[in-house]
């Protein structure tokens, strides 16, 4: 086989994508970057057929290189490979695999494109076809932005198909039969006489066989696994206490660390006195980790108590001392110098509003904590110059780089093992727990340490969902909005991420922050004069990705405005939106949800409904919330939600993710808020950062549609529209327009 041949085939996964997109240029260099990270760990007789399929005499392993944080992605990714490989899900093992740029996520890059996801025009489609090229160069192995499914949809089915054809080629060589006469089924190659050769039996020969070319993928009608609800591969472990999260890593001789950082977020440590702590029985060490102090002890409880008797000298913060000061700084950002983006500017808004009767409103959304159920944690061991870290991270390639930097060693001396994640919601894309674990390991050479953030540290030190303000001016005529000028302002997520070490590659400062006006500028409404602006405030608290990112505040601003405009136009809010919508799949989800909720009929006495729509992460989603006034306050009774994901790979898991997204958004809309007094965050644990509990959880009715052209992920789209739908329901119930989140500040919920 020629060198060139080997080259092309090794790179087939991306090479073929690039060719399909019409790019032949640069294919060689592009391919050359893509090593198969599994090859290094193979023993003789074992085969790594593509970076996703590993076959040994003992079994078949599918690599599912995305973070499993509850969204069921390991099962969906394994299903994509298994469908084409012709194995059943109960015949395989799954592994997250090592950090590698081979596992890049092209979908993440697409989220930043300046085309609305409903734009199927030639330029937008061309850009989407190119998306894998920058992603692989930058080594984005990231789980976020609800991108995993559409990134993997073709790529991982191809991996399964190539592995299958390669196994057939190996069987053909062994038997002397033409490959065309062989079939595959349930993990075996089947000969014409029905003899079965298990794949595991072919491992050694397959390893020596050149990878087959990419065959045509099977049409949807032929799917056995995809499109049907599957039992999650992790569900038994998670139901019997066997699932292992980073906090559960236990190694011989392990010690336990707890962290304390400055109450002034991101602030530095001028000094500390740990003499009392070091006298406590069970305490091994009190370490300076740059941004704070880690006590290391026999157990986590002792480490936490040791932190309480250390005296700290923290440098004062640079941000305003209280919540009001932060909102003043955000309000001050609405000026031309701080304009970050104006991605929509249609008609002539100024002229249309100049002599019109206008409706105006200002909305506010607070800082929010992620409050994952598992507090941040990581285990680390530094020994003989090599650093091993076990962490539930959303970005293992970045984690490896950051661990190496923090430890002052080369990247190839660092091993990252990605565990299950006890919830993430964007928080575990941050690198702080990896960096700190590395600094601990360097100072505790030879001793494995499990670092745990006390819940108080996790809640009160950020990074948070940005606090934000939305403002609009609009006018209506003849039953429709004719001019809308809507703006959002907040601190920038992307501006802070470089400094914290969370970015895969440096983010040029001149680029607008695509998260800032997300789901504000690209909503599929046709309004004659329509302008959408994003303003970047000065840096305040450190802010990061929080489930649905910019959409989490911007949908609230936009969709409450739509309710106000429908009222002004004397139109039904569903009917007015339908009249304005320019995108058929978006219209279809709104029609579906109205039908599901019986929108046309009046709710029972004492109840009221609100509606909202959001296009976020490429998924049009509509929600209707029904609430009831009870003696103990407002109860949310029912939520109906319809979403269009293009292709529904696992219906029951999509239902679970929509329910999860709704409850997460509802929790924040009712009661979550991070505030500051005297430069420190007021909230510390679940007693003062109340999250949704069982008795507050409504019935949630879901429907998945498949009208849109692209396959989309579902981890985030359930979240944005629930807050505005709830606020609009409260208006319908009480006549009071609540323009500030959480709504529980101004109305009583049960």
């Amino acid at each position: 086989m020629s060198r060139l041949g080997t080259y092309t085939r090794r790179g087939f996964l991306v090479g073929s994508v690039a060719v399909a997109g019409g790019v032949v240029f640069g294919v060689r260099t592009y391919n050359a970057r893509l090593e198969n990270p599994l090859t290094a760990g193979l023993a003789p007789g074992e085969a790594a057929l593509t970076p996703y399929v590993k076959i040994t005499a003992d079994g078949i392993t599918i690599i599912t290189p995305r973070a499993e944080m509850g969204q069921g992605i390991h099962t969906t990714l394994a299903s994509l490979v298994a469908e084409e490989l012709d194995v059943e899900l109960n015949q395989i093992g799954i592994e997250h695999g090592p950090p590698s740029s081979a596992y890049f996520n092209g979908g993440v890059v697409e989220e930043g494109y300046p085309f609305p996801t409903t734009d199927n025009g030639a330029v937008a489609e061309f850009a989407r076809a190119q998306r894998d090229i920058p992603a692989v160069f930058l080594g984005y192995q990231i789980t976020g932005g609800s991108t995993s499914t559409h990134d993997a949809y073709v790529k991982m089915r191809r991996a399964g198909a190539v592995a299958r054809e390669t196994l057939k080629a190996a069987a053909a060589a062994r038997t002397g039969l033409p490959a065309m006469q062989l079939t595959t089924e349930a993990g075996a190659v089947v000969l014409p006489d029905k003899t079965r050769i298990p794949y595991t039996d072919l491992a050694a020969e397959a390893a020596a066989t050149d990878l087959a070319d990419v065959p045509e993928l099977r049409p949807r009608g032929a799917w056995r696994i995809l499109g049907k609800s599957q039992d999650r591969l992790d569900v038994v472990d998670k139901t019997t206490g066997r699932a292992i999260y980073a906090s559960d890593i236990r190694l011989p001789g392990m010690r336990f660390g707890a962290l304390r950082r400055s109450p002034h977020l991101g602030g530095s440590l001028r000094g500390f006195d740990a003499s009392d702590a070091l006298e406590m029985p069970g305490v091994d060490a009190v370490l300076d980790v740059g941004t704070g102090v880690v006590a290391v002890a026999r157990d986590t409880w002792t480490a936490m108590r040791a932190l309480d008797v250390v005296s700290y000298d923290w440098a004062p913060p640079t941000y305003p001392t209280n919540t009001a000061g932060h909102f003043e700084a955000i309000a001050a950002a609405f000026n031309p110098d701080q304009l970050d983006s104006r991605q929509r500017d249609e008609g002539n808004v100024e002229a249309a509003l100049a002599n019109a009767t206008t409706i105006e409103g200002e909305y506010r959304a607070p800082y929010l904590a992620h409050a994952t159920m598992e507090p941040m944690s990581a285990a680390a061991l530094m020994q003989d110059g090599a650093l091993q870290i076990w962490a539930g991270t959303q970005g293992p390639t970045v984690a490896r780089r950051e661990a190496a930097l923090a430890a002052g060693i080369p990247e190839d001396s660092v091993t990252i093992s990605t565990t299950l994640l006890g919830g993430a919601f964007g928080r575990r894309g941050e690198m702080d727990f990896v960096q700190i674990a590395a600094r601990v390991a360097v100072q505790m050479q030879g001793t494995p340490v499990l670092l745990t953030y006390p819940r108080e540290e996790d809640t009160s030190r950020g990074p948070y969902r940005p606090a934000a303000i939305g403002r609009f001016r609009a006018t209506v005529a003849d039953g429709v909005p004719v001019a809308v000028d809507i703006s959002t302002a907040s601190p920038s997520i992307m501006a802070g991420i470089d400094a914290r070490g969370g970015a895969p590659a440096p983010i040029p400062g001149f680029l607008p922050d695509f998260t800032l006006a997300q789901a504000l500028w690209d909503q599929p409404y046709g309004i004659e004069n329509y302008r959408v602006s994003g303003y970047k405030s000065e840096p305040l608290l450190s802010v990061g990705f929080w489930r649905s990112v910019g959409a989490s505040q911007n949908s609230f601003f936009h969709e409450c405005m739509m309710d106000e405009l429908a009222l002004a136009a004397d139109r039904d809010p569903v009917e007015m939106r339908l009249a304005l919508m320019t995108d058929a799949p978006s219209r279809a989800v709104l029609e579906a949800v109205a039908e599901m909720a019986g929108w046309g009929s009046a709710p029972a006495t004492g109840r009221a409904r609100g509606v909202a729509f959001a296009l976020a992460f490429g998924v049009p989603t509509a929600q209707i919330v029904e609430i009831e006034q009870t003696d103990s306050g407002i109860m949310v009774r029912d939520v109906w939600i319809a979403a269009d994901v293009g292709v529904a790979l696992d219906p029951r898991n999509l239902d679970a993710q929509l329910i999860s997204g709704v409850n997460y958004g509802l929790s924040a809309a009712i009661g979550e808020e991070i505030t500051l007094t005297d430069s420190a965050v007021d909230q510390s644990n679940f007693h003062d950062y109340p999250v949704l509990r069982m008795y507050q959880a409504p019935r949630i009715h879901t429907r998945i549609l498949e009208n849109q052209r692209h396959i989309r992920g579902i981890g985030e789209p359930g979240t944005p529209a629930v807050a505005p739908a709830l606020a609009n329901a409260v208006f319908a119930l009480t006549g009071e327009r609540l323009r500030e989140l959480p709504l529980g500040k101004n109305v009583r919920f049960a």
Partner: protein
Amino acid sequence: MDLTINGSRHNVDLPDDMPLLWALRDGLNITSVKYGCGIAQCGACTVHIDGEAVRSCQVALADVWGEITTIEGLGTPDALHALQAAWIDHQVAQCGYCQSGQIMQAADLLARNPKPTDEDIDAAMSGNLCRCGTYPRIRAAVHSAARAMQEV
């Protein structure tokens, strides 16, 4: 100090005032018992003492008054408890971090109230947080398990 956990005896040499949670997790490596808050607000640390659900973050080691059961003692993959079978049937778990505590709490509920209503479930389970929002499926799974246990 001697502890009986899932039927076997363990000797631990740890301070009297250490919360049971940390003795289990860090002293005995029983990591199915989770830390979520440390202040009785989340239920992730729920285990049974003499069949009653308790927050192990609130029980000092010296005060442990009986036999401890963790989720491993409730059922295993080969011999699932009816609640675990229902949990799998309804595919409840997402990230899964809260679920050991949820199931231990639900087992306590069904032991006292074999036919709970939605309101009973809400009342018994509202001390157990789930940030993945699996509450509707938890409710459904508790009802299924209750039915299954009646049939036996």
